């Protein structure tokens, strides 16, 4: 088998490697070659881990040769968002303030993927500390959308989404605090999953907003996403918010169809989605109805207040979490005569504009005299949203919405107006506030032949139903176009399955 015969999906790669049909080394070389050819156009990575990946592949191949089981994701290259700690390997959060930091431990998801035989090929670019919706807030420059390099890949996990779309790795890991997996997945034409809060360990995920953050996969197929979630999910004693249960079986349900399922349409969903997006969501409802699902109307009146609640709660939590970047224990220090001056100077130098903006907003929302009017009120709105979802889920098994209000937009379109950028997260934010799972599934194209994602939402721990619906949408979806910057030899993965 030549390098060109390496399969494009994680499941097929692992099966071929475990069967000895293709070597993990060939798999890694093929993906490093794709990175070598196109990374300069895409800038998905903050760091490519070529040597480490080759060594890991050699170890997998040795295990196969020795007759040992190399694991369920044997030889599968993965792109890790650069806010996931990797021991001894720089972890930057795309911020100057973590310059040079090499974590002294691995994130649980990193450990679990490695134990399953997956191979980290790089650390991917993000909006600084995962704050943004376009990856333009990176201290290292933006990532470009493989479908149109003049446009953003979405964010904050834009590097991981672009890496998968570009064929640099069949699996990416991201984090989703308000849509940072689902929105870039939609804009890059790949599958992206935000699991139930607590299903995947946050140990070693650099904290942004701890009551909202969740790690999840980017993949080309729903089946790959299920396979990865089954590996990274499940209880972790190192995360006190980890749900003390195993991850439910997902892969076995993907062919079950949607016959008899109730798919909810939110009649009071906030407006603002572009017509091409609305058209694809309608087509998704039609496809599920044709497959035997019942479409039901539901109301989620507080959905529309999610943006406000989120942009008070997330910055409030961030202002507390980011207090640790003070120049004492890691990363950047700007020398000054006393500690307070050192804190002030280090944080001024190390943080970018959006991070400062959110620290300011969050500190204000938590400060004496304003706490009740802002943070306290936002927490009550959060309750309303959760209660409204609970009522909607009495009548519907899943809900269907756009993942993003628009297709990928051009660089600079929203950088002058923070609020315009925040509106990118309108449809994804509410399920972070409620802790529910959500995922974006590619479902055709819109303006400029760019990918559109449909979002499937489900109640807490109802990933099995969510994945069944996602798999049905995938079966009904038109093929996603191949990324335009990728030649045929290394591309085509976007239309897999």
């Amino acid at each position, binding site marked *: 088998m030549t390098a060109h015969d390496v399969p494009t999906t994680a499941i097929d790669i692992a099966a071929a490697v475990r069967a000895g049909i293709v070597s993990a080394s060939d798999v890694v070389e093929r993906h490093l070659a794709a990175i070598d050819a196109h990374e300069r156009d895409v800038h998905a990575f903050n760091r490519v881990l070529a040597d480490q990946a080759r060594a890991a592949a050699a170890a997998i191949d040795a295990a196969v040769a020795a007759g040992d089981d190399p694991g369920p994701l044997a030889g599968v290259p993965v792109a890790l968002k650069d806010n996931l700690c990797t021991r001894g390997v720089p972890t930057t959060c795309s911020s100057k303030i973590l310059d040079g930091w090499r974590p002294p431990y691995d994130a649980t998801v990193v450990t679990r993927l490695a134990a399953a035989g997956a191979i980290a090929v790089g650390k991917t670019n993000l909006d600084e500390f995962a704050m943004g919706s376009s990856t333009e807030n990176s201290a290292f420059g933006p990532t470009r959308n493989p479908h149109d390099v003049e446009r953003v890949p979405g964010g904050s996990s834009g590097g991981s989404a672009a890496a998968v779309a570009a064929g640099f790795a069949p699996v990416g890991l991201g984090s989703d605090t308000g849509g940072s997996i689902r929105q870039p997945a939609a804009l890059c034409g790949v599958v992206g999953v935000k699991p139930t809060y*607590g299903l995947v360990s946050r140990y070693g995920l650099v904290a942004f907003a701890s*009551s909202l953050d969740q790690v999840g996969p980017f993949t080309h197929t729903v089946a790959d996403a299920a396979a990865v979630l089954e590996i990274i999910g499940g209880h972790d004693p190192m995360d006190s918010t980890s749900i003390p249960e195993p991850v439910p079986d997902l892969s076995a349900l993907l062919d079950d169809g949607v016959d008899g399922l109730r798919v909810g349409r939110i009649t009071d969903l906030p407006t603002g989605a572009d017509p091409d997006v609305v058209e694809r969501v309608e087509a998704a409802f039609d496809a599920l109805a044709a497959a035997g699902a019942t479409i039901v109307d539901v109301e989620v009146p507080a959905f529309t207040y999610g943006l406000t*609640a989120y942009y008070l709660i997330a910055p409030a939590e961030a202002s507390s979490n980011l207090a640790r970047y003070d120049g*004492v224990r890691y990363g950047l220090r700007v020398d*000054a005569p006393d500690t307070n001056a050192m804190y002030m100077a280090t944080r001024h130098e190390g943080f970018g504009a959006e991070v400062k903006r959110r620290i300011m907003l969050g500190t204000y929302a938590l400060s004496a005299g304003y706490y009740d009017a802002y943070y306290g009120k936002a927490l*009550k*709105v959060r309750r309303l949203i959760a209660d409204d979802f609970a009522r909607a889920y009495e009548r519907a098994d899943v809900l269907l919405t756009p993942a993003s209000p628009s297709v990928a937009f051009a660089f600079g379109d929203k950088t002058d107006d923070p609020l315009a950028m925040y509106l990118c997260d309108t449809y994804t934010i509410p399920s972070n506030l409620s802790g529910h799972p959500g995922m974006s599934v590619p479902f055709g194209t819109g303006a400029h032949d760019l990918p559109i994602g449909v979002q499937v939402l489900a109640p807490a721990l109802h990933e099995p139903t969510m994945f069944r619906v996602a798999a049905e949408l995938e079966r009904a979806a038109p093929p996603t176009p191949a990324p335009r910057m990728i030649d045929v030899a290394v591309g085509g993965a976007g239309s897999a399955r």
Partner: protein
Amino acid sequence: MSDDERIARETVAKVSRLARLALTDDEIDETTAQLAKMLDHFADIDALELADVEPMTQPYPLRNVFRDDVERAVLDRSEVLAQAPKAVDGRFEVPPILGLEES
């Protein structure tokens, strides 16, 4: 409420000190304008009746988590200190805490 009434420049300057962010005068002006615009948008929730609503800080009620009190491997101190901007004698080194500048 208009933008310039929503938040005062002096408040922004105070918040920047609370947040330990040294902002320039220009940055304080810009931040004041941007926060005012955001807070104006965020006023949409003022219309909601929230008096009887319980605040929700977490997706689920958190319970205290216990584990067995047994020794196990922890982070390697030298590996941790090697990441510090300055370390001496097994500890983080910082400039003087008191006296040189008002906080």
